[in-house]
């Protein structure tokens, strides 16, 4: 496995703070932290190992995967777990080992199931405070805005944040999610796209109105983590990425969509300019 980051245009990530005004981030942080105190959030990321997207050297880190726990449950425990779901009757108990639960499945965890998985089975949910301002149906439709819109609640509770996202240089937005990490938690290194198989680098803008979230990129156990210390950026999700632990709550938002072509070309020009070797003296 290559230790180097695939990055974008030869850079580990693209710093967007040069081209997008972030002077509103203080106000957004106040709106978001107040809003999060009142809305219903969800946990996510507990099945990343089962999905096979966690960095190989992180697979044995001791944090239990939800699907691994579900597969290992006794029939009695499984009954308790299913009973807390939205439609217990729809699960064929005789074929329980063929049924999947969690992210990217038809049976996402209810709040009660998350609690049971955590409390009884030791499952680790990296993002315990996740909130969709604009939802996608499936992972692979996150770049299409067709038929989608910000939720009524998001527009009511996070109006300035929604306005900011609408101002970003996308021709369409297919997903907008807030990912919050509780104190002392970390997000495991994982990648969203297998290098060489996707048609392109997923176009997304990530921003953290509050400084301090140590989002990082790392493609081998021996490589130094590249911590992204910019408030707004675009990274290549073919690279393994995660969040380092810190003793306080942190969050960021990820917006997926299609960049305006002129924006992408401007970014490329800037990247190539940075890559130019310094003139000899």
């Amino acid at each position, binding site marked *: 496995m290559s230790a180097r980051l695939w990055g974008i245009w030869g850079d580990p990530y693209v710093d967007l703070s040069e081209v997008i005004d972030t002077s509103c981030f203080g106000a957004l942080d106040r709106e978001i932290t107040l809003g999060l105190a009142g809305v219903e959030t969800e946990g996510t990321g507990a099945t990343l190992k089962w999905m096979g997207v966690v960095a190989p050297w992180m697979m044995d880190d001791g944090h239990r995967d939800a699907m691994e726990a579900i597969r290992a449950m006794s029939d009695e425990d499984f009954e308790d777990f299913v009973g807390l779901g939205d439609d217990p009757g729809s699960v064929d108990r005789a074929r329980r080992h063929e049924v999947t639960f969690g992210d990217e499945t038809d049976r996402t965890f209810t709040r009660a199931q998350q609690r049971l998985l955590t409390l009884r089975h030791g499952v680790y949910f990296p993002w315990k405070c996740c909130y969709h301002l604009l939802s996608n149906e499936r992972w692979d439709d996150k770049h299409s805005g067709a038929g989608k819109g910000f939720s009524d609640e998001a527009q009511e509770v996070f109006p300035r944040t929604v306005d900011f996202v609408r101002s970003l240089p996308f021709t369409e937005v297919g997903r907008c999610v807030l990912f919050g990490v509780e104190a002392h938690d970390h997000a495991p290194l994982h990648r969203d796209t297998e290098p*060489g*198989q996707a048609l392109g680098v997923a176009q997304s803008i990530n921003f953290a109105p509050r400084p301090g979230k140590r989002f990082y990129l790392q493609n081998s156990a021996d490589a130094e983590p590249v911590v992204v210390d910019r408030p707004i950026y675009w990274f290549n999700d073919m690279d393994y990425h995660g969040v380092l632990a810190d003793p306080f709550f942190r969050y960021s938002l990820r917006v997926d969509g299609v960049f305006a072509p002129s924006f992408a070309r401007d970014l*490329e020009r*800037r990247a190539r300019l940075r890559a130019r070797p310094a003139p000899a003296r």
Partner: protein
Amino acid sequence: MTADERYDRFAARLSAGGVVIDPWLEGSPRFRVVPLVLPAERWRALARVGEQLAAVYDEVCAIVADDPALLEEFFGLTPVQRALWLTSQPLWHGIARADVFVTAEGFAVTELNSDTPTGEPEAVELGRLAAQDHPDLRDPNEGLRERFVTMAEALTAALVDAPYPRAAGIVYPTEFTEDLSLVRLYRKWLTEAGWEVVLGSPYNLGRDDEGRATLFDRPVSLLVRHYKTDWWTERSSAWSDETIPDAAPLTEALEAALGASVERKTAVLNPFGAVVPQNKRAMALMWEHVHRFSPASQSVIERIVPFSSRLESLHAEQVRVQREQWVLKSDFGAEGDEVVIGRAVTQEEWEKCLALARPGRWIAQRYFEAEAGADGETVNYGVFVVAGEAAGLYVRAQPGATDVHALSVPVLVGP
């Protein structure tokens, strides 16, 4: 059923193919629903023009191979552009598209896109749907897939020492969403032919311990290049009042691709030698050095290639006052970019263009009047040429010169 409903239904059928999934451009339809039906004789004539033009370009490359001083003295290529040619020559061709128009005097061509031709997905998918609706007519693109794959495999077998992995990399600007339909099509074709396909940009290129090019660390014996030759090299604007800040070549990517190619580890398609024929000054060479071409090619040049000259070879005053008779084209402009049609601009704009045209980068080409239909549209017949032989047809219609807003038109061949 309204026209909008008819188009929506057509768009759904088209998208269901999984190759062309963007039937609208800026909210307007990109495609015409009703196919153009060409008489078989017209299709044969167009095919012949495409093949003849490709043969002329092959002679251009042979002349340059014999006289490399032309690279700098005539074409004005940069050092890295010359290196691309010198490491690939005489190879330049795999797949190309000749843009052919019908005029009152017969056929005329505007260029042979021999570098990174586009339009294959639209042509193939539109043809497939049209043929379903009209089984009595022939789809001129029905054989394009087989011809492309056969050519790619033959090229690899000829340029790469065996044994080699049946793995291909498609290299293109992955950070942009244009031309993804082309990537989908090439990936589909190669995968169906049993190739492992890796997708990536030049920034993801490297070489393995054996010297083979890698894409995302996976060794590939074939690199399908959909990244224009001039984008790999030193870049400068064709306009003297504009500075491109990102002028440096993609050195590391070039070292990987060219190195693996020279050492017969990885074949590049289209070969980097396309840097010469893709340069519009190749058409100026056809006319300024017409005596160096074979009699057959001289005849083709005189018949279908509008008179072309390096801008600096013409008398400046002549070009200035004959605005309506000329079209200016920059060396590496494509798809209508950096094309100035004299009769489409004012005299003031024309003179400003002439004043700002960076010396050594432009040609002037005689304007020709393409025949327009009753609706004022002209038709651009894009003849795909694979390994020198006509293999498909991509038709676009638009009032005036062809650019990205042209409507792609399904085409079928009648009796």
